[in-house]
């Protein structure tokens, strides 16, 4: 029993790991194609049909480039910085329920690596550790631009983490559980949390953009002021890790939004189709990925629509607007729940 359980989990973890890497790689392609579409250009089209092999070429290039470690840097910290960024990005996907459960040879196999009863808190813990990757890398570079980029990035990320936590509290009050799987199961069919927490979702998506350092919150690497931000000194695969970690974070936060607010693998009329459990699960996985791709598209859409904030605007939004508004959201949710439960 125990061994079979571990084998199942290993296989699921491996598949989820491979899919995460694949989607992160192809997000770079999607981003360039969408950017091209929005600016009326063609985008990458040389490597393979429609440039579909471009991400592979990029990855190969990252592997074969010379790695430069500046003389004045702290070598050990310089090397582990991108490693931490990548490791934390890869660890968050553990609690995401990718689908319902498959029934194979009489056993129910839930398509989730680990169903932790503190799933949401686990994600917060790991995401907080992500700040270390950026701060250590930026500081160890011993470059003024990197230092500025790193302290900007860390103070931005910790500021928005507060309101992200508060925005989720209103959701937790409704669901009454921190387990990702239970939260998704409660949204069976079309009973999605977005209908109960539209304002909370708005707060959450703003914080998600800030946490991923995406436009309009990409101050840590605003190229006009800081050259490349915290990864100015990085080259070769270490630079690749920072960029990769950013795309993985984008993918994971899209998966998070899809499963917390948009029903995860649930889709309307899933009970009235009369399909077997396995068929429903497989359709559910596809539906879940469609939702994720939609949010990844939103991330890219916003990037080519909104200009970057100034730093004082960013901080004012984070502390003076997001935190009071998310507290207000918690308060109103509490009042409505009390009224409704009575």
């Amino acid at each position, binding site marked *: 029993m125990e061994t079979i359980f571990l084998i199942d989990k290993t296989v699921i973890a491996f598949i989820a790991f491979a899919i995460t890497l694949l989607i992160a790689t192809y997000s770079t392609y999607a981003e360039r194609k969408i950017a091209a579409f929005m600016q009326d250009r063609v985008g990458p089209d040389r490597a393979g049909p429609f440039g579909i092999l471009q991400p592979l070429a990029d990855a190969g290039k990252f592997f074969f480039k010379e790695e430069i470690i500046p003389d004045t840097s702290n070598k050990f910290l310089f090397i582990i910085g991108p*490693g931490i960024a990548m490791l934390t990005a890869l660890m968050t996907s553990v609690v995401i329920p990718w689908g319902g459960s498959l029934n194979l040879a009489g056993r129910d196999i839930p398509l989730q690596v680990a169903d*932790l009863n503190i799933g949401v808190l686990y994600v917060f813990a790991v995401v907080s550790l992500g700040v270390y990757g950026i701060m250590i890398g930026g500081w160890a570079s011993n470059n003024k631009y990197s230092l500025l980029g790193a302290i900007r990035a860390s103070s931005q990320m910790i500021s928005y983490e507060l309101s992200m936590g508060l925005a989720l509290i209103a959701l937790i009050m409704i669901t009454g559980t921190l387990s990702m799987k239970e939260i998704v199961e409660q949204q069976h069919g079309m009973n999605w949390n977005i209908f109960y927490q539209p304002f909370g979702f708005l707060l959450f998506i703003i914080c998600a953009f800030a946490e991923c350092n995406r436009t309009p919150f990409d101050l840590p690497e605003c190229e006009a002021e800081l050259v490349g931000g915290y990864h100015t000194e990085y080259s070769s695969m270490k630079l690749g890790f920072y960029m990769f970690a950013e795309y993985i974070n984008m993918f994971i936060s899209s998966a998070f939004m899809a499963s917390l607010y948009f029903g995860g693998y649930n889709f309307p009329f899933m009970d009235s189709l009369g399909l077997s459990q396995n068929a429903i699960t497989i359709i559910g996985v596809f539906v879940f990925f469609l939702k994720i791709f939609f949010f990844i598209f939103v991330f890219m859409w916003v990037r080519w629509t909104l200009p970057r904030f100034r730093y004082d605007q960013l901080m004012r939004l984070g502390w003076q607007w997001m935190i009071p508004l998310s507290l207000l959201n918690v308060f109103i949710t509490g009042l409505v729940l009390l009224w409704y439960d009575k």
Partner: protein
Amino acid sequence: MLGFPRSELQIMEVQGSEYLPLLIQLVFAFGFVAMVLIITHLIGPKRKSAKKLESFECGIESQGNARLPFSIKYFLTAILFVLFDVEVIFFYPWATNFREFGLQGFIAMFIFVALFLLGFLYLFRKKAFTWD
């Protein structure tokens, strides 16, 4: 063992097994990161020169190093984060059990949030959130 009754030990074992897959994922992730870092270190070209290994500064010669003091505002933000984040963590167990606590829990939390906001207001008046 540890003075727990047997049944409680069994519960702990069952709860612990949820976290095993986490270790599996950690092995995958750590293995991937370490392997890729080592491989790229081995296969990349190595042609170093003094200029190349200097830290970048707009193409001019580097002036000193980056171990400089930076704005106190960033430090203040970090301190405020620690304070407020601890308070936010207190919300989680309360939010999970919100429906069981009912009105009484709501009022208790309201008082807590009022104190939270009082500190927030103080910082606001002291212009801790104003960057210029």
